[in-house]
C-alpha cells in the first residue's frame, strides 16, 4: 500500500525572509504588551494603595486641632512619580541587572525627596494611646476642652481581647474543621451528601439577619457580654467554609499512603496524625490565617454582644476613639488604625507563601 508521492507545486518563488526583523518585531510587541499591562495594574491598584498610604502618613504627621492636607499632597508628589519611575525603569531595562540598578536609583531619590518634603513633619505623638490610657483627656486639654471623656480601657487590654477572640476562634475552627473535613472526605455515612450541600447553603446566608435571635440566645444562655459567647458565634459562622476548604485538601491526599500507614502498624488515629495531617499543612495554615484575620477584624458581633468596656476589642476601641476625638484629632484616630492594622499585615506577609497555594480544587461530592 505505497503512498503515491504528489509532485510539489510552487507557483511563486519563495519570498526572502529577514529573521532579524521578525525577531525584533516580536520583541517590540512583547515589551509593548508588558508596558500596557503594568500601566493598567498600576492604575487599578492606586485607589487601593493610596488610602493606606494616607492613613500611615496622617498617623505619623497630623497634629492636634490642625486639619491640613499639605503634607498629604507633598507626600503624593513624592509617591506618584516614584511609582511611575519604577515602572519606567522596569519597562526600559535591558537586563535584570539594569532593572535592579534603575529601581535602586529611583528608590534612593524618592527616599531623599521624602525626607526633604515630609520628614520635618513626622512625629510619633499620635501614638499617645499606647502609653497614656486617658489620652482622650490629654488630647482635649490641648485645645482647652476639659469635659469628661469616655473612659477608655488600656489599649493593650483591648489588644489582648482581640488576640484572645481571634486566637481561640482559630484554634477551635482549625481543630473542628480538620476532623470534620477528614470524616467527610474519607467516610461514607448517612446524610453525608446532605451535609456537604448544607455546608454551602449555610455560607450563603447573610449572617447579619441572625443578629437578634443570636442576641436572645446568648442572653438566655448567659453568655451575653462575654468573650466566650462571641467566640462561639464566630466559630459557628466560620466553620462551614473552613470545613469545605479542608475537605478539598483531604480529597487530594491519596488513599494509598493512608492504607500504607495502616499496614505499617498505625491505627487510624495515628495514620491521620502522622501521615495525612502533614499533607494538608498548607490548608490548615490557610484557614488558620483567614479565620484569625476574620476574628481580628470582627466588628458587628462584638459591637452587639459585648457591652462592658473591659470586654472591648480593637475594633470597638477604634470605634470609640473615632466617636470621641474625631474632629479634635484625626491623627490619633489614624494612629489607632495603623496599630490595628499591623498584626494582620504581619500575619499575611508571613503566611503569604502558603495562602497562594490554596485552591478549592478537587472538591468531590
Amino acid at each position, binding site marked *: 500500500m505505497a503512498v503515491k508521492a504528489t509532485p510539489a507545486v510552487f507557483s511563486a518563488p519563495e519570498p526572502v525572509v529577514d529573521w532579524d526583523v521578525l525577531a525584533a518585531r516580536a520583541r517590540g510587541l512583547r515589551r509593548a504588551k508588558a508596558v500596557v499591562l503594568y500601566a493598567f495594574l498600576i492604575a487599578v491598584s492606586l485607589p487601593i494603595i493610596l488610602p493606606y498610604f494616607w492613613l500611615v502618613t496622617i498617623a505619623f504627621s497630623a497634629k492636634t486641632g490642625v486639619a491640613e492636607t499639605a503634607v498629604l499632597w507633598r507626600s503624593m508628589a513624592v509617591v506618584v512619580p516614584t511609582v511611575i519611575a519604577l515602572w519606567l525603569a522596569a519597562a526600559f531595562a535591558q537586563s535584570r541587572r539594569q532593572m535592579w540598578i534603575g529601581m535602586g536609583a529611583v528608590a534612593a531619590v524618592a527616599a531623599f525627596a521624602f525626607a526633604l518634603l515630609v520628614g520635618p513633619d513626622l512625629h510619633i505623638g499620635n501614638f499617645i494611646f499606647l502609653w497614656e490610657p486617658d489620652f482622650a483627656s490629654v488630647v482635649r486639654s490641648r485645645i482647652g476642652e476639659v469635659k469628661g471623656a469616655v473612659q477608655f480601657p488600656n489599649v493593650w487590654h483591648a489588644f489582648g481581647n482581640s488576640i484572645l477572640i481571634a486566637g481561640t476562634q482559630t484554634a477551635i475552627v482549625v481543630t473542628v474543621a480538620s476532623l470534620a473535613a477528614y470524616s467527610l472526605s474519607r467516610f461514607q455515612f448517612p446524610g453525608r451528601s446532605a451535609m456537604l450541600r448544607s455546608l454551602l447553603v449555610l455560607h450563603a446566608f447573610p449572617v447579619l439577619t441572625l443578629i437578634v435571635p443570636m442576641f436572645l440566645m446568648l442572653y438566655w444562655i448567659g453568655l451575653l457580654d462575654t468573650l466566650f459567647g462571641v467566640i462561639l458565634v464566630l466559630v459557628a459562622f466560620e466553620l462551614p467554609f473552613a470545613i469545605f476548604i479542608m475537605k478539598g485538601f483531604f480529597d487530594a491526599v491519596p488513599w494509598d499512603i493512608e492504607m500504607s500507614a495502616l499496614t505499617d502498624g498505625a491505627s487510624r488515629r*495515628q495514620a491521620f496524625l502522622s501521615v495525612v495531617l502533614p499533607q494538608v499543612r498548607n490548608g490548615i495554615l490557610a484557614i488558620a490565617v483567614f479565620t484569625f484575620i476574620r476574628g481580628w477584624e470582627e466588628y458587628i458581633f462584638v459591637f452587639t454582644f459585648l457591652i462592658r468596656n473591659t470586654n472591648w476589642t480593637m475594633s470597638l476601641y477604634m470605634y470609640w476613639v473615632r466617636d470621641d476625638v474625631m474632629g479634635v484629632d484625626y491623627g490619633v484616630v489614624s494612629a489607632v488604625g495603623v496599630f490595628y492594622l499591623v498584626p494582620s499585615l504581619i500575619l499575611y506577609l508571613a503566611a503569604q507563601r502558603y495562602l497562594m497555594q490554596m485552591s478549592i480544587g478537587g472538591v468531590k461530592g
Partner: protein
Amino acid sequence: MAKIEFRNVVKRFGDVEVIPDMNLVIEDGEFVALLGPSGCGKSTSLFMLAGIYVPSGGELLFDGHVVNEVEARDRNVGIVFQSYALYPHMSVRDNILFPLRFKKTPRDEALGRVKGAADLVRVAELLERKPSELSGGQQQRVALARALVKEPQLLLLDEPLSNLDATLRLSMRTEIKSLQEKLGVTTVLVTHDQIEATTMADRIICMRAGRIEQIGTPDDLYLRPASLFVASFIGSPPINLIAGEAQGGTVAVNGAKFPVEGASGAVTVGLRPEHLRFGDSGFTGHIVQIEPMGREILYVVETGIGIIRVLEQGSSATHATGEKVKIGFSPENSLVFETAHQKLLPGAHVHAPA
C-alpha cells in the same frame, strides 16, 4: 512466613459482588501472581489480604488462623503500592523507620534494621533524601525496603513495576525475584501484565470477573490454558483463534482435518503465532504488515477468516508486504476449545517443544 488460604471468600461493595466465591491456597514461601484485566478483583483480593477490606463472607486464613476481623496493623504484612505510597514529608530513613515506630523496636536496633533493609535494596546512600528527590526506580526500592524492614510474614506487591520505564522494569523484575528467593517470604504479586507474572511468579492465578479461571505454573497457563480467556490473555503476540467444526472426534478447520478426543460441535482452534509457518498449503491470504521484533519477525496476514499473526525466527524479513502466502499449522500444536463453554478439550494441548 505464612501459608495463606481463601475459603469461599466473598466480597461485596453495596450491591456489587466483586468476588463471588474464592478458594485458593498459597503455600509458605511461595511467590504467586494474581493476573487479570483491570476490574477482575485482583486488587480487592490483595486489600483483603492486607486487612484493608474485610471479606463479606467466607474465611481468610493465615497459617490456619481465621484473620477476617484482624486489623491491618496486627497482620504483619508488607505492601508495595503501585504509586509506592511513600510518605512525602518524611526522609527516606523515616519512611523505612515508620513501620518499626509502632513495634516499639529499640532505637538502635531499629536504625540497624533500617540500614540493613536499605542495603538490601541498595538505597543506603539516599537515606537523608525526601521521596520527591528520588527517581521512580529509587522510590520503588525504598517502598520495598519499607515493606521488608518489619520482616513481614506476607509481602504484597500491587502492580509494582507499572510506573517504571522498560529497562528499569526488566532489572527490577530480576531483583525482586531474587530478593524473594533469598528471604523466602510468601509473596503475592498483583499485575495485569502477563510478562511480569510469568517471569516472576512460581504459580499464576488467572482471574476474570472475580472468579479464578486457572491456577498453574507459567508453563501450564501458556501451553495448557484451561479456557479461551486464559489462552487469549497469556502470550504476546496474542494467540490466533479460528472457528472450526468437529464431528465424532475429528476437527475440521479450513479443509484440514485432525483427530481430537471427544470433540464435537462448534470448536475454536487456538494457534500460537510461533507455531504457524508459511508453506504450500493452509490458510491463504496476503501480508498487510511486517513488525520486526528483534530476534523474530511478526507478519500480520489478512485471510478469508480474519487476521492471522505469524511469528518467524530470524531478524530480517523473508517476505514482503502485499505478498500472497499460505499458512500451515501442525495439529499437535493446536489448542481446541469448545466454543459453547469456552473450555479446553482435554484431548488437545500443545506438547512441550522437544
